[in-house]
């Protein structure tokens, strides 16, 4: 459903990529060049909307984790965790620290599987000139096997803690249905040690890729979690001094609905576009990575901040090291929460939850009535927050690569989109919906 291409005088050169590959969901991109200048760029999202914010209205608050999980099969835990956090915020529930630790472990599993998927199957083929991971595997089977090993370890954590890798069934508002037995958690240690080695090898592998020179002038937004690398909780912060609660952030985010897209474009306080995700998390929290991941980052040539979006693959690899190491510590310190969930008593109110999905900050806000029924729902996924920044990147990259052939330029632009691992399935479902009640 792309809009009309507008352009200046002369005959413009249009680079169009329909059916963007190796991203989650359905999107396309378009770059128009007239007289040697990029005049229009667009990342179009034409994935049909599924109206989650509307269908949540009238549901019981306990259903939100399972329902919102179905927004995205790649990051269901992120949706479940933000939903739980929002409900717990609304009802004034604080979870036991053992529950919090188990959530962090589950979330590490999702980071590992999602980052391994993106680094190895979706992103790396770009740098090596292959169409896909199958072609990459024909040339370097060891690399793909390492990626699959990492991904399997992530899945194993999700299965052990969550019951299933896609759409875990063990998560509830307040905690878990059952605490996994210590023996099951202990069985994760060996695979995680191997995964940690594989993650270190991943950093070394991707650090050796050729990266186009590009520095984005980003406004980074990520959580900060009192000295820990942020995953399942924290306070929203930005590279230009923002420091607010999740609820205050929700008030600051303004989304606009543009014609060519079924996603919403987000701005913060009506100001410039901003970026969430690995680059932002890293920029605001690189000091909290711990020794192992921190040293890997240094060896890979990353400074305290990385503003080259093509190098986001290196940051993701560093986060893989962090997540494997963190998961291992959590496994070693595991004590089953008892009870596995806090009591949650519904009361009328509103609540917001923010967590760090693999692709960036994921925010959910709900209004709940006295019966525990959802009266209003708002979900702000990372991709709709990043979309304007992705387009700004596209403009910069296209302008700097005009000497490439159309094919090469198209591929470079695709790569530029994949740098941010957009999840189009997530982004598409967030139309600005107002429910009018009689």
């Amino acid at each position: 459903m792309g809009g009309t291409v507008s352009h200046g005088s002369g005959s413009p050169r249009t680079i169009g990529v329909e059916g963007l590959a190796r991203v989650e969901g359905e999107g396309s991109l378009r770059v128009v060049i007239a007289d040697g200048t990029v005049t229009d760029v667009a990342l179009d999202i034409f994935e049909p909307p599924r109206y989650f914010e509307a269908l949540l209205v009238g549901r019981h608050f306990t259903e939100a984790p399972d329902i919102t999980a179905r927004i995205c099969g790649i990051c269901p835990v992120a949706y479940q965790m933000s939903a739980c956090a929002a409900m717990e915020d609304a009802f004034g529930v604080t979870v036991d620290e053992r529950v919090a630790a188990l959530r962090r472990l589950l979330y590490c599993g999702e980071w590992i599987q999602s980052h391994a998927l993106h680094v190895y199957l979706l992103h790396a083929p770009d740098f090596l000139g292959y169409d896909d991971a199958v072609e990459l595997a024909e040339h370097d089977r060891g690399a793909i096997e390492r990626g699959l090993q990492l991904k399997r370890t992530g899945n194993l954590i999700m299965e052990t803690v969550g019951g299933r890798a896609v759409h875990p069934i063990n998560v509830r508002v307040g905690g878990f249905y059952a605490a996994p037995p210590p023996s099951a958690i202990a069985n994760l240690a060996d695979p995680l040690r191997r995964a940690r080695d594989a993650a270190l090898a991943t950093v070394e592998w991707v650090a050796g890729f050729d990266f186009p020179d590009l520095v984005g002038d980003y406004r980074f937004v990520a959580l900060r979690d009192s000295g820990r690398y942020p995953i399942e909780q924290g306070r929203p912060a930005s590279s230009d001094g923002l420091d607010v609660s999740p609820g205050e952030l929700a008030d600051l985010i303004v989304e606009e609905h543009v014609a060519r897209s079924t996603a919403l474009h987000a701005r913060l306080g009506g100001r410039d576009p901003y970026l969430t995700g690995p680059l932002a998390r890293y920029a605001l929290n690189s000091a909290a990575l711990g020794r192992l991941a921190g040293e890997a980052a240094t060896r890979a040539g990353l400074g305290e901040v990385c503003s080259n979006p093509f190098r986001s693959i290196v940051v993701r690899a560093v986060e893989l090291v962090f997540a494997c190491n963190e998961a291992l510590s959590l496994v070693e310190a595991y004590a089953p929460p008892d009870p596995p969930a806090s009591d949650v008593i519904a009361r009328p109110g509103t609540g917001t939850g923010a967590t760090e999905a693999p692709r960036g900050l994921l925010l959910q806000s709900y209004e709940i009535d006295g019966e525990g029924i959802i009266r209003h729902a708002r979900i702000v996924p990372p991709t709709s927050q990043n979309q304007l920044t992705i387009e700004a990147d596209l403009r910069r990259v296209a302008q700097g690569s005009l000497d490439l052939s159309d094919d090469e330029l198209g591929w470079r632009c695709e790569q530029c989109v994949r740098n941010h691992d957009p999840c189009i399935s997530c982004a598409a479902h967030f139309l600005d919906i107002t429910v009018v009640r009689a």
Partner: protein
Amino acid sequence: MSGGADGANGAAGDDGRPTLAVWKFASCDGCQLSLLDCEEELLMLAGAVRIAHFTEMSRASTPGPYDVSLVEGSITTEADAERVREVRAMSRRLVTIGACATAGGIQALRNFAGEGEYAGMVYAHPEYIAALETSTPISAHVEVDFELQGCPIDRHQLLEVLTATLAGRRPVIPGHSVCWQCKGRGTVCVLVAKGTACLGPVTRSGCGALCPAVGRGCFGCFGPAETANTASLAAQLRHQGMAPLELSRFFSTFNAAAPAFRDEAVAEGAPVRVALGATRRNRPWGAQ
């Protein structure tokens, strides 16, 4: 492209390997991800079949016809209704994967237009969106050779479906209920022992009876079992104190539009938008 199964004869790739295509409609990608989660099997599979179209995985795409198409997602736009007809015409076998593709998914809740809740919905710019008012399964639009249920599908079942389809036999996927697997793994019945509401008796097996194993009732993510006596389960749940509204919500989730669940939800008072209750293109459930 000539249409239909005959037109798709001789779809095998240049190297003689059968070709596989994966298509996405309105969905979360979770069922496709189950294919990527086949990890090792996937590398083997990539040797046995040629993955000719799989956007999430590759930039490369070879034109049809294809031996097997896996279809994820439901139909929610006119454009997609047209696209699935094209996919059908290019595919010798068309297998739908997941609750979205087999029943319309959670997004089919829009089919139950609760007055006041959905009817009054307005968008910032509804004119930008070309979405249908219903979410319907693939079988409501084209003939489907096999439907694999689950939200998400189980990857072992997916491998059986792929292996069988490539070998030209009908996949062996049992139609019995979650209870069968639940008892098989020796879980204490949460419905009997704790009075926890459980859809296990009417839900199709395949997940391995995951929820009762963590002390939780099944919430029906695999959709109806082959023979699902929903009325008798509903009577029991009502007897245990479940209110009609709760009951109708219980049957109205990821498989809300699957007839067995839909009818029970409606019997419990779920609103149906009469004009859309039976969509124009609906064929009987399971039409092959």
